[in-house]
């Protein structure tokens, strides 16, 4: 089975994010970059499938600048077989990303695309769904368990109010949720081996796709600072304040 795992580079969740004064983006100096944690879960799942199904191949793909190679190398160090960097400098919206991944998946003849349910930077939660639609493949989002029998996949999804089990045939798109697995470490010998694995670069514009964003980020603002609470003297005052000031009742 050939598994394509699209990954995104995001700021380390432990990094304190600062919005630029003009609201055009976030300050990236001193930001530590990591693989989107949900995508890391997707890599882990792909490696586990590969370990069970001999002859499988795990191919990573990311869309970004040359420096994103570092996250691909980390994925290769975890055990992925090879990687593709689709080079692009500007902003791409989720649809453009889905189009690029669809093109790569078709070109690779992938049987399965496994990716995080969302990236922790903008939390769009759109690429997997759009990708399945563009490819015309079945999809399972928020996967907390993935099982295979021949070409049939059974996925347990985390949905509001419980779990949903769905089954479908490959090829397919599966997006991963937090409880699917705990990703392995990139071992030190793995890091040494990753150096020699294939990492191919492709220019985004060479794919012949319309990547013009349909979504525009107008501005970013930091969440408002939390106000200190205040004490009220009685239940009557509390109800009154909730009604007239907080306007929640």
């Amino acid at each position: 089975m050939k598994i394509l795992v699209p990954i995104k580079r995001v700021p380390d969740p432990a990094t304190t994010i600062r919005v630029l004064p003009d609201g055009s983006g976030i300050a990236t100096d001193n930001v530590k970059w990591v693989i989107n944690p949900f995508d890391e879960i997707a890599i882990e799942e792909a490696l586990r499938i590969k370990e069970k199904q001999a002859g499988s191949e795990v191919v990573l793909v990311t869309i970004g600048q040359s420096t994103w190679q570092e996250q691909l190398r980390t994925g290769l160090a975890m055990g992925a077989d090879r990687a593709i960097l689709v080079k692009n400098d500007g902003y791409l919206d989720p649809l453009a990303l889905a189009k690029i991944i669809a093109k790569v998946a078709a070109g690779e003849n992938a049987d399965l695309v496994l990716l995080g349910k969302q990236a922790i930077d903008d939390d769009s939660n759109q690429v997997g769904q759009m990708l399945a639609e563009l490819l015309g493949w079945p999809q399972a989002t928020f996967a907390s368990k993935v099982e295979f029998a021949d070409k049939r996949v059974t996925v347990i999804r985390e949905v509001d109010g419980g779990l949903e089990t769905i089954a479908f045939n490959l090829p397919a798109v599966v997006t991963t949720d937090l409880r699917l697995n705990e990703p392995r470490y990139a071992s030190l010998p793995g890091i040494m081996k990753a150096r020699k694995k294939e990492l191919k670069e492709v220019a985004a514009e060479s794919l012949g796709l319309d990547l013009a964003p349909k979504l525009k980020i107008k501005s970013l603002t930091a969440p408002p600072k939390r106000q200190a609470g205040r004490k009220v003297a009685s239940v009557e005052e509390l109800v009154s304040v909730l009604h007239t000031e907080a306007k929640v009742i």
Partner: protein
Amino acid sequence: MAESLRDLDYFSLDDLLTSEERATRDTVKRFVQREVLPQIERHFAAETFAVELIPQMAELGMFGANIKGYGCAGMNNVSYGLIMQELEAGDSGLRSFASVQSSLAMYAIYANGSEDQKKRYLPEMAKGRLIGCFGLTEPDHGSDPGGMETRARKDGDGWILNGTKRWITNGSIADVAIVWAKVDQGITGFLVERGTPGFSTRDIHGKFSMRASITSELILEDVRLPASAHLPNARGLKGPLGCLTQARYGIAWGAIGAARTCFNTALDYTKSRKQFSRPLAGFQLVQSKLVNMLTEITKGQMVCLRLAHLKDQGKMRPEHVSFAKRNNVNEALKIARDARDMLGANGIVNEYPVIRHMMNLETVNTYEGTFDVHTLILGRDITGENAFE
């Protein structure tokens, strides 16, 4: 990521690391976060070493990581240093275990052993299936190892060893001990396997420092060894001293990890704790201490990175290592003491990692060449005058 493990990179030294070096650091940092921090206080309290971590450390390639071949990861010395830094950000005892396994025991065999010995021991030690220890120090000979009383005498083809070694990290959990002993021609080394008749170990208890690490005494009473147990290329004191240079190199890096944890903890604490209705971090005396910590950690990082590059280029001298070990450990100890002070009463409980690091660093300042001994090494180097004797 536990806040206390976060990086401190005031001068963007990360830009001088390769992506492999950064990935190595991140792997070890994550290992410490996930596997070490949840249980280190329990081990420290119980005076036990976390033996359950050994298989995973081995699988990740941490043992003998900078040795080429023999099943070792073959990383450069920057990566090796970063491993030690991140392990010691967790606990000095954990870093000590790795230092002894890698730089003292494995390196002793790598540098002084026969090809047969290397093939027999190194791959198993890299896999963590064989644990090593390093017996140089004796009850009456610490800074003066040349005065050792352990003797080896020829017995047919083999050898008979007698003596006592003390303050030996990993002693009672080791499968093979590197034992240094005097023969007629000077000092040489032997491989003594656990279970050899006449060889026994006894743990040292009552430690206030390095409690999450095993410290033992090795007792050798008419221990008969075959010729194959002798390290053929170990001739004179430079055999063990060469190993110590490797270990001290890792300690210089490790101390930065411990200091960084103390700094991060003190910074977070003083920013959030209010006295006289404002954060402690707003007071000049507190800021002065924080800035001094930041400065010393950053200087230590720069020394280590340069030292690593010199080592990778084959230009590192033992005196460079003395400089780095002496300075970084001493500054780390001062930083830990300051951090302990800044946390006030909270600084004395194990809810915060600071006092554990502070007590551990007292050991680190003493072992592998005390601060004063490294001062004399550097003094001799710049003046040409030997102040040792």
